[in-house]
């Protein structure tokens, strides 16, 4: 198997007797957009801080491309570009000087590359202005710019859509997909915006109270291949339920004019045929896809911060 770009092994963090991260184990391959989802205070930022070496690990190990972030920091961090929490920049410097500052810290970043990145994040018009005069979204863009400046293999973004307008979110989403699919880099995005993650990620890990509670694949599982809830509008719901139960399907009435069935793609077609041949009028078939939000609230039990 290919070596994962980042590997968290049994990572724990305790501060003052409180366990903030509890035995986290995760592998991230190249070419994937990985979502890190959790309610406020669940430990997303803390995990990211440990991944980039800002915080020490109480237990466990984090390897980036095989290099330990604790023991071999300078080697490990080369592969990483990141925004940790808010994209704080030097306010008294221009956006361009901020980028030049980070460019100088890594050999081989040309002036050309800096301009390229500025263009990519759409800041050409304002890059010579002082960051003090930037809006939150512009600072977020500058944050993304400094993170991708050195073409990292692992891009870590802590709530990157925070402050971006819809167009900006869309651009970022598209760009992250391009980065992962075409340039093959791994993207690690944290968020508590569920719908956002659903559109952006290949896989999502759900973290709660510092514990990893689930990892789910989002893309690839077409909603119709899985068991899902299918709503069928018919003229006589009660009769349809009985007919389906008789045929071995589990159906329940749904509202006044419809029935609900738990089935997959092929099952849906079979049920439709059955209903039609039995003389029912089928007005419509809807597949109710469980959104990540539903799944998320299901696993976390809709629990509040704690």
């Amino acid at each position: 198997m290919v070596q994962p770009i980042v590997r968290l092994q049994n990572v724990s963090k305790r501060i003052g007797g409180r366990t903030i991260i509890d035995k986290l184990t995760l592998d991230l391959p190249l070419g994937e957009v990985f979502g890190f989802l959790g309610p406020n205070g669940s430990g997303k930022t803390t995990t990211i801080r440990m991944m980039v070496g800002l915080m020490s690990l109480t237990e466990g190990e984090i390897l980036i491309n095989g290099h330990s972030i604790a023991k071999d920091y300078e080697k490990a961090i080369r592969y990483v570009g990141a925004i940790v929490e808010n994209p704080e920049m030097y306010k008294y410097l221009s956006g361009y000087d901020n980028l030049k500052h980070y460019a100088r810290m890594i050999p081989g970043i040309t002036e050309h590359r800096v301009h390229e990145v500025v263009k990519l994040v759409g800041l050409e018009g304002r890059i010579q202005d002082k960051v003090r005069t930037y809006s939150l979204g512009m600072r977020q863009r500058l944050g993304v710019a400094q993170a991708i400046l050195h073409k990292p293999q692992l891009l870590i973004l802590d709530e990157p859509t925070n402050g971006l307008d819809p167009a900006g979110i869309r651009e970022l989403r598209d760009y992250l997909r391009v980065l992962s699919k075409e340039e093959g880099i791994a993207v690690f995005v944290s968020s508590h915006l569920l719908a956002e993650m659903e559109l952006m990620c290949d896989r999502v890990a759900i973290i709660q109270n510092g514990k990893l509670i689930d990892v789910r694949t989002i893309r690839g599982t077409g909603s119709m291949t899985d068991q899902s809830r299918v709503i069928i509008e018919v003229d006589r719901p009660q009769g349809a339920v009985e007919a389906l139960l008789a045929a071995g399907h589990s159906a329940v009435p749904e509202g006044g004019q419809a029935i609900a069935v738990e089935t997959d793609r092929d099952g849906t077609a079979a049920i439709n045929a059955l209903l039609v041949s039995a003389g029912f009028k089928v007005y419509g078939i809807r597949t109710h896809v469980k959104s990540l939000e539903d799944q998320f609230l299901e696993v976390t039990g809709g629990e509040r911060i704690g």
Partner: protein
Amino acid sequence: MGDFLQLVRNENMKIYKRSRSWIMLAILIASALLISIMWLSFGGRDTSMWEVISTESMILFVLLTIFSVVIAAASVAEEFTSGTIKLLLIRPWSRNKVLLSKYISILLFGLLQAAALFLSTLLINWICFGIYSSLDETQQGLLFPGGSNPFAYMLMYYGMKLISLVVTVTLAFMISTIFRSGGLAIGLSLFLLLGVNNFVLLLGFLDYKWIDYLLFMHLDLTKYIGATSLEDGSNLWFSLGILGAYYIIFVALTWYVFNKRDVAA
């Protein structure tokens, strides 16, 4: 690995792209000019330029030290308060080197100020009082003990002052790194610094051995110019030894804390 000088360039950029650094330099030079003009209008032109230079250097080195302490205190603390420390540290550089680049840029700023002060007082007073007006014998002995010529004396004076400046700035740098608070670093360092003269006088009367090992008993090295041992028993080498010991402790503590710290800003 990359080029360490680039890190120093970055730190320099963060100092000199801010107007406050230039305002400090301007105040320093403007003060020298002001003193000379006042001297000229009240004392007349028959003063020796060296007398004015020596007075100005004495007064303005206090200001220079304050400015250096402010910059030193800001360097690390501001990165923490603004949150930029996170983006600064996640680069392929050890924390040791990032901190060293900051330290070097601070020392360079002190040096730049000293050079600016030295050259501007020289130039201003040359113009104001003329280079030929010389000192008489008694003045010479009073202002420039040790019988050296005024220029050599002033160079030595700056040398001694710079040694104390480095120790003071390192102290401010340490406090700022440990407590991540610029205000505290400025306050504590200046308290020590400005308290020096008063404390030294006061403590001089006490007869405890440990007083000899206090930092601020040794921060004024200019008294040793011309004589390495003084009548009160103090000695240049002993003072330098004490300063060196403090310096090593300051540096070791600063780097240790900076390396260990979890960055949760």
